[in-house]
C-alpha cells in the first residue's frame, strides 16, 4: 500500500513538470452532441487565415501578377498539376475539392506547428491543429469517400458497381472492404502523424524546454506538409480511379 501514494506523488510531479494533456477536450454542448470546441476554434482560425489571405491576394488582380497574387497563382498551379496527374483529363471539376483538402490540411498542420496556440488557455484541454483530432480527419476522409462515389456514379451511372467484380467475382469481398479501408487509412494516417508530431514536440519541450525540440519541430513541419500532400494526392487518386476505364 505504500507504493500507491508514492506512485501518485511521482505521477503528479511528472504531470506538473510536463503538463502534457492527451484526451482532454473542451466540450461544447450543441443539441444532443458534445462538440470538441478547441477543434472548432482552431478550424475557424485556419478558415479565417485561408479566406482572408485569398481575399487580400485576389482583391486587385493584375495581368502581370504582383507578389501575393503570384504566390496564390503558383499554389493553384501546383494543385492543378497534382489533380491533373492523378485524375487525368477530366480533372477540371475536381480542382476545387482537391485544393480545399490540400490547403485546409496544410494550413491546419502548419498552424499547429507554427502558431503559439498554448498562449491561450482553455478551461479544458488545449488548442492544437484541427487535424490533431480524429473527428476532423474522419470528416475529411468521409468527404473524400463521398466525392469518389459521386465521381464514379455521375460518370458511369450504375455500371460503376461493375468494378467490384472487375478482375474476378471472387474479389468482391475485398473490393467492398476497400471502400471501408480507404477512409479509415486516410483518416488514421493523418491523425496519427499530426498527433505524433505534436506529442513528440510537447514531450520534448516538457523535458528540455530549449533548443532540443527545434529539429523535431522542423521534422514536424516537413511531415505536416508531406501528410497534406499525401492526403490530397490520395483523394485525387481515388477520384481518378473511380472515373477511369469508361468507354
Amino acid at each position: 500500500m505504500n507504493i500507491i501514494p508514492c506512485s501518485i506523488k511521482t505521477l503528479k510531479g511528472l504531470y506538473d513538470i510536463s503538463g502534457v494533456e492527451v484526451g482532454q477536450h473542451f466540450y461544447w454542448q450543441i443539441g444532443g452532441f458534445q462538440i470538441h470546441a478547441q477543434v472548432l476554434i482552431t478550424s475557424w482560425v485556419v478558415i479565417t487565415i485561408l479566406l482572408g489571405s485569398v481575399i487580400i491576394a485576389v482583391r486587385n488582380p493584375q495581368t502581370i501578377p504582383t507578389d501575393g497574387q503570384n504566390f496564390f497563382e503558383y499554389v493553384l498551379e501546383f494543385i492543378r498539376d497534382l489533380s491533373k496527374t492523378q485524375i487525368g483529363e477530366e480533372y477540371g471539376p475536381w480542382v476545387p475539392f482537391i485544393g480545399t483538402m490540400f490547403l485546409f490540411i496544410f494550413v491546419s498542420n502548419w498552424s499547429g506547428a507554427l502558431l503559439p496556440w498554448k498562449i491561450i488557455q482553455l478551461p479544458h484541454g488545449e488548442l492544437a491543429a484541427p487535424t490533431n483530432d480524429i473527428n476532423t480527419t474522419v470528416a475529411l476522409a468521409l468527404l473524400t469517400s463521398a466525392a469518389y462515389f459521386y465521381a464514379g456514379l455521375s460518370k458511369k451511372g450504375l455500371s460503376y458497381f461493375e468494378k467490384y467484380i472487375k478482375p474476378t467475382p471472387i474479389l468482391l469481398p475485398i473490393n467492398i472492404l476497400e471502400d471501408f479501408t480507404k477512409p479509415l487509412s486516410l483518416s488514421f494516417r493523418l491523425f496519427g502523424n499530426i498527433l505524433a508530431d505534436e506529442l513528440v514536440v510537447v514531450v520534448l519541450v516538457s523535458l528540455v524546454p530549449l533548443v532540443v525540440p527545434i529539429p523535431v519541430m522542423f521534422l514536424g513541419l516537413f511531415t505536416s506538409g508531406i501528410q497534406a500532400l499525401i492526403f490530397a494526392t490520395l483523394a485525387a487518386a481515388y477520384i481518378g480511379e473511380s472515373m477511369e476505364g469508361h468507354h
Partner: protein
Amino acid sequence: MKNVTHSFVFLAHWPSAGSFGLNTDILATNLINLTVVVGVLIYFGKGVLKDLLDNRKQRILSTIRNSEELRRGTIEQLEKARIRLQKVELEADEYRMNGYSEIEREKANLINATSISLEQLEKSKNETLYFEKQRAMNQVRQRVFQQAVQGALGTLNSCLNTELHFRTIRANISILGAMEWKS
C-alpha cells in the same frame, strides 16, 4: 494492478486550468523555440520562395512579351496584306476599265461594219427587186405580144383571100427588096 487503475483514475480527474486566460509561461508555451523555427523558416524560405515566384513572374512576362511580339508581327502582316489587296484591287479596276473601253470600241466597229454590210444588202435587195420587176414586166409584155400576134395570125388566116394574099406578098417582097438594097 490496483496501482495502475488508481493512476488512471487520477488521470481522469486531473485538475484543469479552470477558465479562459493567457498562459504567460514562456517555457511552457514553447515561445522561444517557435520564434526560432519561424525565424529560420522565414530566413530560408523567403529566398527560395522569392526565387520561385520571380521565375514564375519572369516566365509570365516573357510569355506576354512573346505573344505581344507575335501580335505585332501579325498586325504588320495584316497591314501588308491589306495594302497589297488595295493595290490589286486598283489594278483590277484598271484592267476592267481597259477591257470595257476595248469592248466598247469593238462594239462600235462591229456595229459600223454591220451597218455597212446591211446597207449593201439593202442596195442589192433593191436591185434584185428592180430586176425581178423588170423581168415580170417583160414576161407580161411577151405574153401580151404573143397573144396579139396569135390573134393577128387568126384574123389573117380567117380573112385572107387570094388577092389580099398576093398584095401582101408583093408588099413584103418590096420591103425585103428595099432592105436588101439598103444592105
